């Protein structure tokens, strides 16, 4: 059971979260202009590293904040990424 640090609620058990996959995959600015290949890249293709991975989590059973962390896919070590998307309110203390 991993312990994941929600920027709003603090550390919580993994079961309170939903995994959100790779972080930093932005919605293309002009989808109509994307080629079929580029669009398929956005929709379907994700990295799957053995090692550090920048990924998103959603505190679904808590404050319902999306945030991103860097996590090692082998050791499960977690490193917070300040100012990551979805962590806008991280500075707002409880």
């Amino acid at each position, binding site marked *: *059971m*991993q*312990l994941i640090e929600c920027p*709003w*609620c603090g550390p*919580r*058990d993994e*079961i*309170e979260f*939903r995994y*959100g996959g790779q972080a930093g995959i*932005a*919605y*293309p600015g002009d*989808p*109509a202009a*994307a080629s*079929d290949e580029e*669009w*398929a890249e*956005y*929709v*379907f293709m994700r990295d799957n590293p053995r090692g550090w991975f920048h990924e*998103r989590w*959603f505190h*679904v*059973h*808590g*404050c*319902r*904040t*999306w945030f991103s962390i860097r996590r090692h896919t082998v*050791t*499960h070590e*977690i490193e917070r990424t300040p100012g990551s*998307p*979805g962590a*806008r*309110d991280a500075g*707002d203390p*409880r």
Partner: protein
Amino acid sequence: MRRESGGRIDRSRVLRFTFDGRELTGHPGDTLASALLACGVRIVGRSVDLGRPRGIFTAGVEEPNALVRVGDEPMVAATAVELREGMRAWSLRGKGRLDPAAAAGDARHDKAYLHCDVLVVGGGPAGLAAALAAGETGARVVLLDGGPEFGGDLLSCRTLLDGAPAEEWISSVTARLAAFPEVRLLPRTTAIGYHDHNYVVAVEERDANRAAGDEGGQGGGGGGGTLGGRRLWHFRAGQIVLATGAHERSVAFPGNDRPGVMLASAARTYVNRYGVLPGRRAVVFTCTDSGHEAARDLAAAGVEIAEIVDPRRDGAVVTGTLADGEGILTGVVIGGREVACDLLAVSGGWNPAVHLFSQSRGRLRFDDALQAFVPEVSAQAERSAGACRGEYGAAAAVADGFAAGARAAEAAGLPARWQDGTTGPGGNGGGDPLRVPECDEPAQRSPAALWAVPAGDDGDRESFVDLQRDVTVADLGRAAGTGMRSVEHVKRYTTAGTGADQGKTSGAVTVGVVAGLLGASPGQVGTTTFRPPYTPVAFGVLAGRDRGRLSDPVRITAMHDRHVARGAFFENVGQWKRARHYPADGESMERAVERERRAARTGVAAMDASTLGKIEVRGRDAGEFLDRIYTNVFSSLPVGSCRYGLMCGADGMVLDDGVTTRLAGDRYLMTTTTGNAATVLDWLEEWHQTEWPHLEVSFTSVTDHWAVVAVVGPGARPVAETLVPGVDFDDFPFMTYRESAPARVFRISFSGELAYEINVPWWYGAALWEAALELGAVPYGTETMHVLRAEKGFAIVGQETDGTVTPQDLGMSWIVSGRKPDFVGKRSHSRPDTAGPGRKRLVGLVPARLPEAGVPATPDEPPGSGTPGAPEAAGEPGESGAAGDGEGTPTEGVLTEGVLTEGVLTEGVLTEGAQIVAAPGDRRMLGHLTSAYPGVALAMVRDAEAGDRLVAFDGREIPVTVVDPVFHDPGNTRRDGIPDAVRPLPAAADPEVTQWWRPERAVSPLAGFAERFAAAGTAGVTIREIPFLRMREVRGEAPKEGLRLGPGWWLTVEDPQTGAGAPAVDDGVDVSAQRAVVELAGPRVRDVLMTGCPIDLHPAVFEVGAHTQTLLARAQIVLHRAGPDVYRVLVRSSFAGYLAEWLLDALEGL
């Protein structure tokens, strides 16, 4: 046999038990194994493959032989089971077996969650010392030990500490630990798993501990011969000290498995701790100094030591054993010389118990001096202390424990007090509590590096490495001979180490023997992977209280009890219970559905539609946001109007659908399918937070706030008018909504008939339902709802769709806006594989002919006179004379009257899931049948046009004709009702019933629990519902009164005593009935909450006034600490019944 005196047993009391039906006795303090030995039982089982007799081999959880059935537990180690009065045990022949027919045990298991600064696993000298050093700092410490008493190996030997028996040191340390308010001592608790981020799971023999506490002495517990209730602890620790000790190992030599062969440490434990003589005349075969100590203790207890064989002296080894007719040891062979004995005590060396360390991903190394694997590099916030890292001896272990405990506390952020000359907070000024006692043990020399005695081929076949799996040196040789080099391969090939003991005594021997075979060192071979659980765990313990009705939350609507009272049959939709049909007088489902359907098509019927997801979408940019999410346009929707919408994933596939209504310029009410409500809310928040945070919009679930009754049918209007008298029904067009507080009415239809969906707060749901039925509406369930929608060709997300279906595939291109520049999924609709030909599309199917029942149509038979292109014929069964005769006679187009098997029409009608092929005998699938009801079938089929003849294959081959999927009223002529169908309202309708809005008709979600709550209250905890509190969810950054649920997200709640703090009605979204409020009060509330809530509830962490969203049991809650011992649990109304049952169950187990 039992010694005259000695041992930590209570000879003043006798415990009776049976073994294989024999009536035997022991004493409190015994294990089942020690009592069996005391009674002279030598054979405790037969080996799994070879059926060889086996005796007790160890005195702990590492036991490979003495696996027995105890009560209803099919397989437990007799060496780790405390003897209890009335215990019934049986030996096993081969494997333990689970008997599905056996009655479930009555033991009550549960779970608990606890956070701490320092968790110490193991209560021997090192663990006690570590807990003391950490406890002295004021740290929150938990100390676990699997045994009933702390002390570990000190309880098994005669070591003197500071010149006194070790138990005096143990007593003083445990007393000191018990005095620390932040230290929790858990005997009889075995850590079974060390998981990510310092999460440790442990099993406590809770009933036994409670019984011991009650008696103030050694544990009984779990009467009736069972093992009693256990608790599965989940610890989250800042720092962990592993003080798990070491296991002695054997040596492989011929005949080393005879009853009478025992580990030297076990023999020592039996004489010292249990006052039992495991033999009268012993040979000790030892590679270690500890074996010599065992010999001394055996001799002191009166056992004749025939000989001590130590390979370090002249290479002496035991080369064989002698046995009597039963296979019991009578002597040993030492290099051709026979020595008579009835006990062979063996010490091959010690294996530090690195199981948990390895589970934590720590790295091991092989220590040549110790001849053992020891921890090298930690992977988590953990340190090992004492024998589990090769620091043997009591004094060394205590010193190591003090250091580890102090460093752990320091690392957890507490000031270290170790060796600074002061006493800790619990100090009494009586000297340094962290002084290492003087110990009389001799220093230990390195053990002999002996794993197996060379014995030749015949001998190797009798030289056992893994006693439980009957794996011999010869088996390992065969594995190596096939070319296996990895010990993991050898393990899987030979099964060595795969028994219930997971190789605790055999693993290192396997490695040593394999290393010898490969000409490598044990360190080069390495160990196999250590995996949880450390000791076997019963499935019932893992389940805890999540069994039976509590196994998964059951979500119910406000009308649930009314459905039950009417004899409804239910179906599970996700966690929801939905009324499927309401059989009258023993009707079959088929007949009930036909009756319900007819009411909806010809008169008036009512359905509980409360389970549909409901999300209030609010904010300046709400319309813009919905335009991006839905395939069609919502920003232009007039206020007061409803529109059906479809949303897609980025891949262009249909995600969900529903009707969304514009309540005001900046407020929409979205509905979702029942099963997707949570997914859609997540989806909206994901896009808002991660892609479009600049849009001013927020989402509030109101699914549980609103109870919904759909009043449906051509005669629906007078019923609806009576139910909501404040609405002008003359001015109420299709796809609009009207509000007459507290009701909202939506004129939308999922059946094609005139319909009004009346929404009222949960509290009034049951009353509204009764009122509708009092006014003559016929209740109908989800099965009829499915038939009605299928007849209209309405696809259901999740039934017709499966994540590979686009709106275009459903024939719904009309709902996909071409004008909007973009919406989620739009770009994917022009990808070659979604826009191209050959995709499966939604079609209707009708049977092409009427074959004789049970006789498959043969390929040679031409299709009969079907009704191609004439869906009206098949699609108007409700109006046909055949269906109107009141007998539910199958209508035209139905093969025969269906037969129900497990609720599915399996015979006579088309079958859901049937494969669609082009022609009889064809096996190329064109699609599959997604919905099938009498006369109506929908399918997803490629390359099909109306009029095509195809075959539905469900084991039978049934010719079908493709038709338009809209079977019923394709011209939509019926949605405004049929004046002729309007019937006068029942004259006898009782206004007391029909006036659902009267205040006294309101029912809170837990009203039915009031008496049970009152009865369950104790001095420790009381429980009550606080009903009808006004609540609103408010968004914004400005500080607000109330509970903060998340960033810019507030729940304002009126004060239950004063009504103060009541939210303003124009502020945010009314969610008063969305959640039920349960108040738990009393000094033991935390003991209740900890059994299901994973967050840290320590009173200094979760302070008075604190509140958060988290989980309790399997329900999402808002937890609010309203006072020092007062906690409020806010839970969604549909989950309230589940959580109330769970809480009552928890109170029972306190």
